[in-house]
């Protein structure tokens, strides 16, 4: 069953590990906030009472539990005398609301950091990468705009496996090049040839 787990890593490139890590990070960090204890400003019962006779409209907020969230518990001090209370309370609308400020803070900050990381990586790929990468025959096909269908069928046969690089850095380079080639192929299909996704 789980012999698949090392195989999963064996078949995905290094560049797919980063989005996996980001997703896992997202999941792990979100679990604690969902059960975080609520601070006192995170729950409230809000009663809105419209203008009634000569009393102007008013909003009442109070930190009560859900079963106590009604006009009688929340509206204090009651602006009408005792026999009018029922008629006044019929007009008021009470809602129970709760929120988790930690969840909101954590999610927004994680989202902004993900966007920031993607922006930096995009800037690196678009601006810095072409400068530091010396053009060599292995990367030449990336610039060839007239790739025919044959190069795709060639790519399904394994690439020169004979020259298996041994250092970690060269393997990382190879994985990144493969990912860039895939994205290049996708970009050609969608943006240039308009073969998919109109």
């Amino acid at each position, binding site marked *: *069953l789980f*012999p*698949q*787990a090392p195989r*999963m*890593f*064996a*078949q*995905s*490139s290094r*560049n797919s590990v980063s*989005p996996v890590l980001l*997703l896992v990070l997202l*999941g792990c960090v*979100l679990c604690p906030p*969902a059960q975080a204890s609520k601070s006192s*400003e995170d729950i409230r019962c809000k009663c*809105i*009472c419209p*203008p009634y006779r000569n009393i*102007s*409209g*008013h*909003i009442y907020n109070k930190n009560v539990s859900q079963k106590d969230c009604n006009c009688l518990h929340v509206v204090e001090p009651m602006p009408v005398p005792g026999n009018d209370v029922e008629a006044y309370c019929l*007009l*008021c*609308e009470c*809602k129970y*609301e*709760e*929120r988790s*400020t930690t*969840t*909101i*803070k954590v*999610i*927004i900050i*994680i*989202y902004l950091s*993900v*966007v920031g990381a*993607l*922006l930096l990586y*995009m800037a690196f*790929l678009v601006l810095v990468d072409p400068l530091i990468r010396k053009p060599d025959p292995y990367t030449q096909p990336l610039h060839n705009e007239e790739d025919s269908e044959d190069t795709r069928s060639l790519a*399904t*046969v*394994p690439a020169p*496996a004979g020259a*298996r690089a041994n250092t*970690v850095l060269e393997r990382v380079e*190879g994985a990144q090049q493969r990912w860039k080639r*895939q994205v290049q192929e*996708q*970009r050609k*299909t969608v*943006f240039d040839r*308009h*073969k998919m996704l*109109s």
Partner: protein
Amino acid sequence: MVNAGDMNGSGNLMDFLDEPFPDVGTYEDFHTIDWLREKSRDTDRHRKITSKSKESIWEFIKSLLDAWSGWVVMLLIGLLAGTLAGVIDLAVDWMTDLKEGVCLSAFWYSHEQCCWTSNETTFDDRDKCPQWQKWSELLVSQSEGASAYILNYFLYIMWALCFAFLAVSLVRVFAPYACGSGIPEIKTILSGFIIRGYLGKWTLLIKTVTLVLVVSSGLSLGKEGPLVHVACCCGNFFSSLFSKYSKNEGKRREVLSAAAAAGVSVAFGAPIGGVLFSLEEVSYYFPLKTLWRSFFAALVAAFTLRSINPFGNSRLVLFYVEYHTPWYMAELFPFILLGVFGGLWGTLFIRCNIAWCRRRKTTRLGKYPVLEVIVITAITAIIAYPNPYTRRSTSELISELFNDCGALESSQLCDYINDPNMTRPVDDIPDRPAGPGVYSAMWQLALALVFKIVITIFTFGMKIPSGLFIPSMAVGAMAGRMVGIGVEQLAYHHHDWIIFRNWCRPGADCVTPGLYAMVGAAACLGGVTRMTVSLVVIMFELTGGLEYIVPLMAAAVTSKWVADAFGKEGIYEAHIHLNGYPFLDVKDEFTHRTLATDVMRPRRGEAPLSVLTQDSMTVEDVETLIKETDYNGFPVVVSKDSERLIGFAQRRELILAIKNARQRQDGVVSNSIVYFTEEPPELPPNSPHPLKLRRILNLSPFTVTDHTPMETVVDIFRKLGLRQCLVTRSGRLLGIITKKDVLRHMAQMANQDPESIMFN
């Protein structure tokens, strides 16, 4: 079948950086899977596990784990889909408000969150709070006046452009497959097509991130369709962790069907509606086992989203409706009118959108995707800001239109003339005459309606994630609300007319314009997507009650009839045809009287069929045949004279098997004979070692005779999911019919361009 990936054994972790070895049994990109083979492989696997489970306790436990792995995958999909939907909702909430201002106490709060703890308690200022400031207040400390308005306007446009530009750049650089809605492609994938990378991890990440950006930029699109894509990416990711699903494309598609249900469930807070949507719209084969598992995934996703609680009121959708005022039989007439409007709008939208997308595909417009996004965003922002109904996000607009006007609403739409002595509770307020605010709101809604109708045609299909549900519902809700207010005022001012006299007494609460908005939204959504049962169930799960089922059904049925009168395809089928995906629709009927001979290849005058013989071809002959043609497979016959059929061999497997044999087996050279029989043929002495390829031969290819009607052939292709079918007469092989030939033939019969079927 040898899994060549096993050759590396349990290598070190650095092996993951090497290129994966394609093994026999996987499919090439942009090809169709063989459903029957996947099914039989799954049966084999299951039989092996069951037989081994009797051997030892450990094997028994493994068989139990295998049986439970399906449920574990559903649980994981539900959790991740719910989490991502919660993240998207919260981030959209914040970023939409970022266009207008910022919260000073904590920058990550949206307008509503910021004013949560405000001390403004008077009824008239209940929307103001000092902690949240508009940009003009922050930058030039002015909140009223022309310069403040212009500065706010300018910054609104700048933020919208910034978000849209960022989104389209991210899509272009990292994951070009993340654009569009995703539902047409997912429909095609679920019918058996392979698109590598469409459900990948980068696509998942980029689609989630850019979806937030484009919804916040104020463009006229929704997030429901892309959420289905996101959920299917989660499904693909988790199914790759379990060998039961990662090695079997047929089983994987069961998981993807369930994931699509989870996606719709979190988009609308409607688990049952999600399952029905997956059944009706998205899936191709939906076995009953998948029904229960989809429901489980949808439920887990809905609960996860509820625990994140993005809207603060334990509701999953912003426009959840909670009133239960009754409706009357005489109101069915305006509901049916709204249905007709929905059908007409659906037809108009589909025709215009497809024409625009076709222009984008074929002319120079398609060469400037980034510029197109920026221009459309600029136009949308410039026109949307002055009208308060288009300035806010579309979900908020729908929420306001769906809501009933109590005594407490402060919006212009609820500016009725109140009776100061009235003492009725909140949801029983009688019909009131409209104040001036209502009339100006009607004008603004009419302008907003026209604007939304026009701009959505150009927005859907751009190179950014874009959904269609929310804009359609907005159009329908605006039209419905206007009709509802019209009927309400008519009933108030003319309560002595014969139609109103029976059910609408003065002083009673007869007409609920919010209900008309809901019915209009359902009608427009049904007119565009042609959903039936799933639409009604989604809408009734949104309203939380069964009272409104009859009006919703009436409108949905009417809009589907009216729209079907003009064209049979919904928007998703229309996009599938536009892109030429090889999707054989189960809803199409084939009523022509053609026979298999009319469709099969080779036609008269064409080169004869390329076949392999059972034991008389050499390795070199086979390689030449493979190189000269580009067919996906070759039939194997006994000999060139007697063309009796033995089986069918796939091109990819031939290539791999010959390559393996040349590298690993001794004595296999170009002159070696290739044989598909059990025993090697009689060979002269000193001949090179023959190559046995029986294991890659499919011994049971599907055959029909040449007089089989095409109706039956199309039915066979649909029900069994075939890729090709051989045509024989008296046992002799005549030709072959592939799925592409069937699709081309159907297109030809329907007078469409048969050359538009692009994929294999």
